[in-house]
């Protein structure tokens, strides 16, 4: 599944902060039918007595990028973390509803959350490489957890993952240096490589660029564009331009409810809901 071709030149979309959001989505993907990765219906989530998600119905396509947008506190991270059951690390959470990945109920009693997280990888807002591990060990730690010890295999996967994360050329000569010796943007790409190394079916990204400068952001966006071909990518972002640049579909959340979900082009050019329209136009949030 690894696409090892060299990265394409940086996407020509307007940089963060440009005034208008112009979606540039390949028309081939923007139209047609989709194969569903996540099939979610009537999904609610509570932190203790506080309900954070209300009856979310959404079908997220595979081999496409889906953006989640909405004002702060609307439940974007909560929704993302429910997709790989990371929210269960927070005591007192409770869910209701249906959440299926490729037809399989991820919350079925027989399903181990550990296995869910191996299938659904995650990249965080702040890069978090393991500080005591080298660059190589950081990438390979997930495979080692799975008991892989074949050296040739690990070496191949190391290179493939770092290439996919567009980091190989920058680090190939010092793979044994500590992961935290890299720059912020490189660390974030290292974390992406680490998530990709275990070959997840889905990659979740929670504001992966919010701590990065525009150049590092462009690199990651370009990388997301590459991942589209073989993965299901779901990205939370506060940056409307970013959502417009990288995603095929966009979901707008507000106060824990999914307000509108459609082709990214539609959400930005012709939203059917007035709240969506106000939000993407920057009138609130």
């Amino acid at each position, binding site marked *: 599944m690894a696409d090892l071709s060299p990265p394409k030149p940086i996407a020509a979309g307007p940089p963060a902060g440009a005034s208008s959001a112009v979606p540039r989505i390949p028309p081939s993907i923007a139209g047609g039918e989709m194969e569903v990765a996540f099939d979610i219906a009537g999904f609610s989530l509570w932190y203790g007595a506080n309900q954070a998600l209300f009856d979310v119905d959404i079908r997220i396509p595979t081999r496409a990028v889906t953006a989640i947008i909405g004002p702060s506190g609307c439940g974007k991270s909560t929704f993302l973390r429910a997709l790989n059951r990371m929210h269960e690390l927070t005591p007192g959470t409770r869910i209701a509803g249906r959440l299926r990945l490729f037809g399989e109920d991820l919350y079925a009693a027989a399903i181990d959350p550990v296995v869910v997280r191996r299938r659904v990888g995650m990249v965080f807002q702040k890069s978090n490489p393991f500080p005591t*591990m080298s660059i190589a060990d950081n990438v390979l730690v997930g495979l080692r*957890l799975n008991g892989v010890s074949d050296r040739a295999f690990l070496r191949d996967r190391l290179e493939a993952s770092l290439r996919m994360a567009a980091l190989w050329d920058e680090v190939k000569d010092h793979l044994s240096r500590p992961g935290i010796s890299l720059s*912020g943007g490189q660390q974030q790409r290292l974390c992406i490589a*680490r998530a990709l190394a275990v070959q997840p079916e889905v990659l979740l990204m929670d504001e992966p660029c919010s*701590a990065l400068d525009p150049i590092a952001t462009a690199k990651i966006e370009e990388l997301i564009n590459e991942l589209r071909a073989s993965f299901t990518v779901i990205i939370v972002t506060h940056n409307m331009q970013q959502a417009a640049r990288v995603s095929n579909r966009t979901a707008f959340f507000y106060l824990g409810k999914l307000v509108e979900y459609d082709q990214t082009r539609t959400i930005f050019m012709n939203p059917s809901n007035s709240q969506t329209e106000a939000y993407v136009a920057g009138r609130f949030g």
Partner: protein
Amino acid sequence: MLPAGIRWPDISFRWLALLAAVTIGVLIALVGWELYQGSRMAIGQFGPRFLVSSTWNPVTDQYGAWPFIYGTLVSSAIALIIAVPLGVATALYLTELAPMRIRQPVIMVVEMLAAVPSVIFGLWGIFVLIPWLRDHLFVWLKTTLGFLPLFQGPIYGVSMLAGGIVVAIMILPIITSVSREILRSVPNLQREAAYALGATHWEVMRIAVLSYAKRGLFGASVLGLGRALGETMAVTMVIGNRPEVSASLFAPGYTLASVIANEFTEATTDLYLSSLFELGLVLLAVTILVNVIAQLMLRSLAGSGTGKIN
């Protein structure tokens, strides 16, 4: 320049802090100087041989520190071998595993352990621990691990091993609470990074928590060691107080701190007294050395593991 009213507290605080630091330094130097003054006679008489000689005989006025140095180091080592894994495991349990509602009670129990006076531990050692060790644990050790020189020879009860175990209990609270602080300082993002890769609870502790915290945990252990070296009362009640160097942990021993406490009042000759002073000097030197190392380690921890802020 700022108005004097704003600068004054700042300046005076700095001077106060400096004064406090200098006072502590001066006090330690004074204690060291006094000990040196007191031990000049012994130093003149025995020279460096004092440190390696195993004879401690008030009758012939021959004194050597080696049995006490040995006893101090071995009982402290036993204490660390027991207390570090136990303390770190307790801290790990408290930060990573225990349900919220039982954390606070357990922490309170551990902290209460620190408040129990040393002599109470000694009494408990004599009346509870030693009989049990003598009749059960030691017998078991002798039959299963008796091929090791460590577990051979007659069993009296009072012994180096009993001393080590009592010291272990006494340093357990500090090791546990410092370890807990260190484990709590591991960022949640590290744990989540591991969970997101499909790590189990145990794997998260190994790759995200312990490896991040290992230097700090080492510092906590050295802090515990500092305490162990100076522990006096409880040890002297259970270790047997015999200035002998024996390979067997069942044999009685003696520590620097206990011999000073026990024999100070009965030191009949000047040389005897002076030798006790020199033991005090040795103990001070060992303790300071260990604490300096611990401080350096804890400080270097502050710069480690936090990642690079870009």
